């Protein structure tokens, strides 16, 4: 890629900010730029990155999904409870069950969005409250402590695909979470770039009416998007569980704005149709870096929340300004009229 094209892409600026920010932190704390810290960052942020893939797909299609975090916690909490009750200690089982729950809940979202043609933000706001409420009612509110956690989940959380020794003889390594993330990224990239279903997601985000006329099955595409996002959320739920070794039914919920901000930061337009997976991942990296290092540069963690708000509002403003710009700046002139 030549330099000119590099600077035309919004992802490039995110990458530059990441590099500058990392350099800055490294000056303050040289321990930042170590392989061990990098592996640790990858382990703790893989879950968010997987959620972001789903949010990205929905955003591309012209929608907004705020229910992904709820689906993740419902997948996690319901399947770990069922697992303990049934006495099945298998990582495959919990992944399978949680992903299945995610797909079902995603499909319910798709029914409202596609069949009833309701606005996605309202639908997912509604369903997230509905899913969460139903879970708390039927599966309880008691947290699952590390002592009750099945062994397979615990060992999965500490499983490394690459192990390196530290100076003192102990080891650290690259978590399997990262491998799962990379695999999901490759699959998603392939679907988006080389299948008609994937092009359909871009098409309906660009011009829904034209997509219908061209012959896309938009209903099928919507079902794919929301079930796939649900599937990813289910996977994330289990990764989150094996990362923190604790299941609280009120965890994860409430972080959705951060995930959406990461995707918007990565260059995906909130009005749909535009964005890349690379950008999304860069957005996740930047948000994660901020989250983990604000204290190091002397700012309280509340700035994180503040920053997410700024990113979202800027993201919407840019979309609005672009639309106004294309209109030739011709907005309502008679502003004094009552």
């Amino acid at each position, binding site marked *: 890629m030549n330099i000119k094209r590099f600077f035309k892409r919004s992802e490039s600026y995110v990458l530059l900010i990441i590099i500058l920010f990392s350099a800055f932190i490294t000056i303050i704390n040289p321990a930042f730029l170590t392989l061990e810290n990098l592996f640790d960052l990858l382990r703790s942020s893989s879950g968010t990155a997987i959620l972001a893939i789903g949010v990205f797909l929905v955003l591309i299609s012209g929608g907004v999904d705020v229910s992904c975090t709820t689906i993740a916690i419902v997948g996690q909490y319901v399947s770990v409870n069922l697992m303990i009750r049934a006495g099945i200690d298998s990582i495959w089982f919990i992944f399978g069950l949680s992903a299945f729950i995610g797909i079902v809940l995603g499909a319910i979202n798709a029914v409202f969005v596609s069949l009833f043609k309701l606005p996605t933000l309202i639908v997912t706001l509604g369903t997230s409250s509905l899913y969460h409420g139903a879970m708390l009612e039927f599966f309880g509110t008691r947290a699952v402590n590390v002592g009750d956690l099945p062994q397979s989940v615990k060992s999965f959380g500490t499983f490394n695909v690459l192990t390196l020794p530290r100076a003192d003889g102990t080891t650290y390594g690259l978590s399997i979470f990262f491998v799962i993330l990379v695999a999901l990224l490759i699959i998603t990239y392939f679907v988006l770039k080389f299948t*008609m279903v994937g092009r359909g997601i871009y098409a309906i985000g*660009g011009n829904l009416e034209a997509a219908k006329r061209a012959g896309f099955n938009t209903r099928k595409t919507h079902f794919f998007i929301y079930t796939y996002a649900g599937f990813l959320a289910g996977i994330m739920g289990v990764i989150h569980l094996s990362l923190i070794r604790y299941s609280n039914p009120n965890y994860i919920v409430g972080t959705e704005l951060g995930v959406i901000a990461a995707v918007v930061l990565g260059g995906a337009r909130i009005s749909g149709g535009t964005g890349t997976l690379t950008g999304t991942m860069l957005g996740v990296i930047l948000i994660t870096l901020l989250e983990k290092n604000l204290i190091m540069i002397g700012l309280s963690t509340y700035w994180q929340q503040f920053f997410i708000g700024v990113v979202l509002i800027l993201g919407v403003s840019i979309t609005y300004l672009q639309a106004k710009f294309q209109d030739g700046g*011709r907005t309502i002139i008679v502003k004094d009229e009552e």
Partner: protein
Amino acid sequence: MEDVFLEARNISKTFVGVKALDDVDLTIGKGEIHCLIGENGSGKSTLIKIIGGIHKADSGTIAIDGNVLSGKDAIESIRAGVQIIYQDLSLFPNLTVAENISINQMLETNQQFVNWKKVRETAKRALSEIGEDIDIDERVENLSVAKKQIIAISRALTQNAKLIIMDEATSAITSEEVKHLFTIILKLKERGIATLFVSHKLSEVFEIAENITILRDGKLLGVYPSHEVNEERLAYIMTGLNLKSEPYVYEATKFSETPLLEVKNLTKKGQYNDVSFHIKPGEIVGVIGLIGSGRTEVVESIFGIDQPDSGSIYVRGEEVAIRNPRDAMRHGIAFLPEDRLTQGLFDVQSIGNNIVITVIKNFLKRSKLLDLPKKKNCEVEWVQKLAIKTPTPKNPANSLSGGNQQRVVIAKWLATDPKVFILDGPTIGIDIGSKHTIHEIIRDLARQGMGILIISDEAQEILDNCNRGIVMSNGRIIREFSDSRTIGVDELLDIVARRVESGAGA
């Protein structure tokens, strides 16, 4: 015609009790350039949708190359070689030119995977077929409307189009671009591809069409070879009205000599320079000039939307300061903007609300609540006065046709009881029939003593309806004529255009 491509016979279609098409025929030869014209609501859109397989006809048959279509879905028509390019072009702004051109073909051949090399080749081939060179990696949102149109035509070619139907293809592009579009259509003709132009504009029809089919109220009025009819005759057939109107005559003795509105040496840097003119009661004054001549800017200043840098405005002989539209309205000036949809109409609001919006304060009771019966009477009165076609003023404004919407905007301003009425492009995008009605309304107002200023780029409109006129170019008044009857359309157009050339050279 020996080589018929499409033959529609006895097509009828009814939508919820309204007969949209009644026993209509349409025949298009191979490679023929055909034009389908009619006013809004005449059934043009319904007919093309039936040909495209989007609607099914209640009765009648459509045969392509002699094979009768079942008419049950759009794919059948597409496979037979019919491609419709809608006014919105149905493109994906976020995707590249290459993908936009190839995507329909990929869908039609039921591909599951994308071969990007093939996508690019398909796009290149389609563009080269009509001799166009557009960067296929550019996103469509960055292209002009005319270029987008070329993309849509190329996309049609990838699906082996034998007939390309273009719905209002020339309404959003410049006259230069229209010419270019026509050369593309002639290239298509050389390749044996027929074009059906669907339009309600008459002037462009003659340039290119071989035959013209005219619809009115869902009925076929006739098919004419384009060299056998002229514009006036077509207008007559289309509307059923004899639209040849007598020029407006100003009766100077009937009203006072004091101008209702007079501007002196109005100047705004970079927009207009030293503009002076006046309007007397009963006069209709025309302002003609190209876009960018400053005509719209001048009247926007008079109405207080923008302040002039220097110069003065007089209302009935007294100098006034107009700082905003409220000031202008208080001095009895009304202004109908060029773009009624974004500037003049609240289109989801009811027709009635749109009419009374400027005078809503008059309906406040002492309790500061609205006097609803009084408001309703006013709404009904204006709907009747201007013959707005609606069963009730309660219907939303966007349920009306363009011509009727314009009448609503006119009614809204008339409700303020203005002394001077400025109309910027009063008949843009309006059917010929409705256009005539609006002209009649304007003349009536003048006859009752109102002063009218019409801004238009149609020389004919100015000469027919104004007793005198002003030509503007590059922000200045370059010519005034005191009697419209002494000047011809061609002469006026020459003044408008010649000055532009010399101005550009200076």
